[in-house]
């Protein structure tokens, strides 16, 4: 076998899925990065063909696990780890379903060659959707192993139990056999006609217990490998010629200047022009030597006129939910309220920029990428290069933050093109400027609410319109008889409203919709002279929401008061990713400067069965802090297709001095299916801060972010 060119870098350790010996490590010069040999052929451990796996997650348990002769259980998932902590939660689920020790489970993630197909890591779906599917498959594996033990030990299945990967006779525990002895390193052959039930939650050893991150030692020592940390022999660094605007078209280009940087290779495929150099900073030096002329025809849209443009546009109008009759609702109302809420483009701003390493060997290509959807990237590379899927392998090593931003994986396609053009391994690390320029921003939007309530403070009418933002989280949630939710979106053939790409940003648009809805609720509560908690409960029928509100009030130590109380307390509630949340905040507003300091935040969350309470808490804390960014400071500035937000000097994300005291209560719902945890808490942060500012000052905020200037402006009007 020729090993020379068949190398693959690996994130941590090697995995052996089908028992082949693949532990042939080679240390490379200088870089200190271990690469290991692995022939392309000889995989197929699951026995499930690529085309079968495609489009949906397989039910074949062999695709999820391999029991190694040493007793280590390799578990495979197409999900990736970007900080959200599924690297821990999935192992808890795997260990419990198989009845093996937590420490014996090794998780292998985000490799299209090794892992079962997965659409992508988003929507807080790993624990609530992938997890249960994986458990069903693993339950079958466990049952098969017990049957094998039964024939080997000559003991009926009913008399066998499993603990820590050992099947034993309950009447004579010395009669036992381990999973490793049963599997002998091979894949299991048997499948059951009647699928066994999954483990009951009362029998869990690991699930529902708080587990700390399992990747932290790797991450605090600098050993954790992210895409940019990989190195291949002969690897070069790329920089791509970028236009100054999303509206720019390349007219002419002069690359002769790169000769001033010896060792530079220029590659070109039409408008796709890049420089390659073995030294990263030489590539940086070379790219600016290219002279390019563009024709630019900017649309007349910028960060101040975009909202008028959205509301005035010829849009596709879609009523997504309605009930009763708005005219009747207005008639029943003693007071009507009309508000317009504005929300800008926001950037994901992960600390790791989009990065990819591509390596073409013969008719096959391997791409490592900071990507939330390795299988999606595999599809896109295959389409771009005209290659069959089986010849494209994508691996997502540790990802340095995603938040929806790495669902887009342009860099992975770019690196594949470069690796093919160059005929050598190419590393592409987007600069921070490229990261902002090509980010699929959270879409700006306008949110218009018309509502009415009767003399008793009951909401009778709700007319809610979303303009170009997105409808996730736009449900009315309150018990309102006459309502309509309308979505205004891009009309086919009409001028594009968003001048650049937009995409999913952690709990996509639920942040904006919750800000609009929950602000409107407080506007009505204030007008009714009713405490905002009481007002919410009075208008809710949803018991889960009421429970969350009561739980957060309890945690926060809330005492009722009419708005504005001067205390600076705000609240909000909503649902996202199958989870119900209610949050409260206390803020201090500096009336001279407009600065808002968030003092403390409490969160109550009904997320069904909570697999890892510690992980869930980390996500809640992350949601609160990240949410303070969209609420208080983050806004992408632009003019036409030119993005003026270029770096952390002009895009202000939350910092240490902002951090409030955060506490949370996760409602005990062990008997309910697990729901999402990565996103729900963030949906309420804009709303709790806006409502708290009102409670502190009587100034109502209608536009995010709530910058000091905007707070001062609102204070003048209050």
């Amino acid at each position: 076998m020729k090993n020379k060119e068949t190398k693959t870098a690996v994130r941590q350790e090697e995995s052996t899925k089908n028992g082949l010996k693949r532990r042939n490590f080679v240390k490379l010069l200088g870089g200190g990065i271990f690469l290991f040999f692995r022939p392309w052929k000889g995989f197929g451990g699951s026995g499930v063909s690529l085309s079968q796996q495609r489009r949906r997650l397989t039910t074949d348990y062999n695709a999820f696990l391999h029991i190694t002769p040493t007793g280590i259980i390799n578990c495979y998932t197409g999900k990736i780890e970007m900080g959200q902590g599924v690297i821990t939660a999935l192992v808890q689920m795997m260990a419990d379903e198989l009845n093996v020790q937590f420490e014996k489970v090794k998780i292998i993630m985000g490799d299209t060659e090794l892992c079962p197909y997965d659409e992508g890591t988003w929507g807080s779906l790993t624990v609530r959707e992938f997890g249960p599917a994986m458990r069903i498959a693993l339950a079958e594996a466990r049952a098969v192993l017990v049957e094998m033990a039964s024939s080997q030990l000559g003991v009926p299945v009913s008399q066998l139990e499993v603990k820590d990967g050992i099947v034993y006779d309950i009447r004579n525990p010395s009669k036992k056999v381990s999973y490793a002895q049963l599997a002998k390193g091979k894949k299991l052959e048997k499948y059951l006609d009647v699928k066994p039930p999954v483990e009951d939650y009362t029998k869990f050893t690991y699930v529902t217990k708080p587990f700390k991150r399992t990747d932290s030692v790797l991450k605090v020592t600098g050993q954790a490998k992210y895409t940019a940390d990989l190195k291949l022999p002969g690897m070069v660094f790329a920089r791509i010629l970028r236009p100054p605007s999303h509206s720019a078209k390349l007219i002419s280009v002069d690359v002769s200047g790169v000769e001033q940087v010896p060792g530079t290779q220029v590659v070109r495929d039409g408008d796709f022009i890049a420089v390659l150099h073995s030294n990263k900073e030489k590539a940086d030096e070379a790219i600016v030597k290219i002279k390019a002329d563009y024709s630019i025809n900017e649309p007349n849209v910028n960060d101040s006129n975009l909202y008028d443009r959205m509301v005035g546009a010829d849009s596709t109008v879609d009523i997504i939910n309605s009930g009763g009759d708005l005219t009747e609702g207005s008639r029943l109302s003693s007071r009507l309220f009309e508000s317009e809420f504005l929300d800008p483009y926001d950037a994901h701003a992960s600390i790791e920029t989009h990065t990819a390493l591509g390596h073409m060997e013969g008719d096959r290509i391997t791409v490592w990428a900071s990507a939330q959807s390795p299988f999606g990237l595999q599809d896109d590379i295959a389409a771009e290069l005209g290659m069959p899927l089986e010849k494209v392998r994508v691996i997502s090593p540790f990802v340095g933050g995603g938040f929806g931003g790495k669902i887009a994986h342009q860099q992975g396609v770019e690196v594949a093109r470069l690796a093919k053009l160059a005929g050598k391994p190419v590393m592409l690390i987007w600069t921070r400027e490229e990261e902002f320029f090509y980010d699929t921003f959270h879409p700006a939007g306008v949110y218009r609410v018309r509502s009415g309530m009767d003399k008793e403070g009951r909401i009778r009418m709700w007319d809610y319109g979303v303009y170009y933002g997105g409808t996730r989280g736009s449900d009315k949630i309150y018990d309102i008889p006459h309502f309509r939710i309308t979505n205004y979106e891009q009309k086919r053939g009409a001028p594009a409203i968003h001048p650049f790409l937009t995409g999913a940003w952690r709990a996509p648009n639920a942040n904006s919709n919750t800000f609009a809805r929950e602000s409107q609720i407080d506007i009505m509560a204030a007008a009714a002279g009713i405490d905002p908690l009481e007002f919410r409960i009075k208008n809710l029928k949803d018991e889960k929401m009421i429970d969350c509100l009561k739980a957060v009030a309890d945690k926060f130590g809330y005492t009722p008061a009419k708005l504005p109380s001067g205390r600076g307390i705000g609240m909000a509630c909503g649902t996202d990713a199958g989870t119900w949340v209610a949050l409260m905040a206390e803020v201090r507003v500096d009336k001279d400067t407009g600065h808002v300091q968030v003092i403390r935040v409490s969160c109550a969350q009904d997320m069904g069965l909570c697999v890892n309470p510690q992980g869930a808490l980390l996500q809640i804390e992350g949601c609160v802090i990240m949410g303070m960014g969209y609420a208080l400071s983050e806004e992408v500035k632009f003019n036409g297709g030119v993005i003026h937000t270029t770096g952390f000097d002009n895009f202000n994300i939350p910092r240490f001095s902002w951090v409030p005291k955060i506490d949370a209560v996760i409602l005990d719902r062990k008997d309910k299916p697990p729901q999402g945890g990565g996103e729900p808490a963030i949906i309420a942060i804009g709303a709790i801060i806006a409502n708290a500012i009102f409670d502190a000052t009587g100034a109502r905020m209608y536009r995010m972010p709530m910058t000091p200037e905007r707070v001062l402006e609102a204070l003048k009007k209050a």
Partner: protein
Amino acid sequence: MEVKINFTLNGKKTTILTDPNQTLLWVLRNQLGLTGTKYGCGNGFCGACTVLINKEPVRSCITPVTDVSGKEVITIEGLARNGKLNPVQKAFVEHDALQCGFCTPGMIMTATGMLMKNPAITRKEIIEGLEENLCRCGAHGRIIDAVESAAKEMKGGK
């Protein structure tokens, strides 16, 4: 033209031949294979690339490699001794003070530098000292707690 630079790297005397126009960050990552030091912005704004030069936290992405001549450089790889984590690293693990982990080396280097200089550091000083290090996952509260407990441990001479 390449130049010869002598310095101490993670306790070892090191000599490199390198282009003097490079930054410390890329020499560490690509020439010396120390990839724990991260590129986050290239302008010194995020702190992911922080290393210690003569015990001072420094942004390696804007530091010319020639600046380290004759000096002592410590990177994230140089903190643990014989597999034993330094107090800050240990506290990060104990407090679960990280998520994606990309800012973590820079956080730990900044905090370690602060504690070397001022073991009696207050919570307020920790917050001020870390203010220019960016984290997008929102691990801030835990990072502050971790550094505070590491400070206590270092002060206690453990």
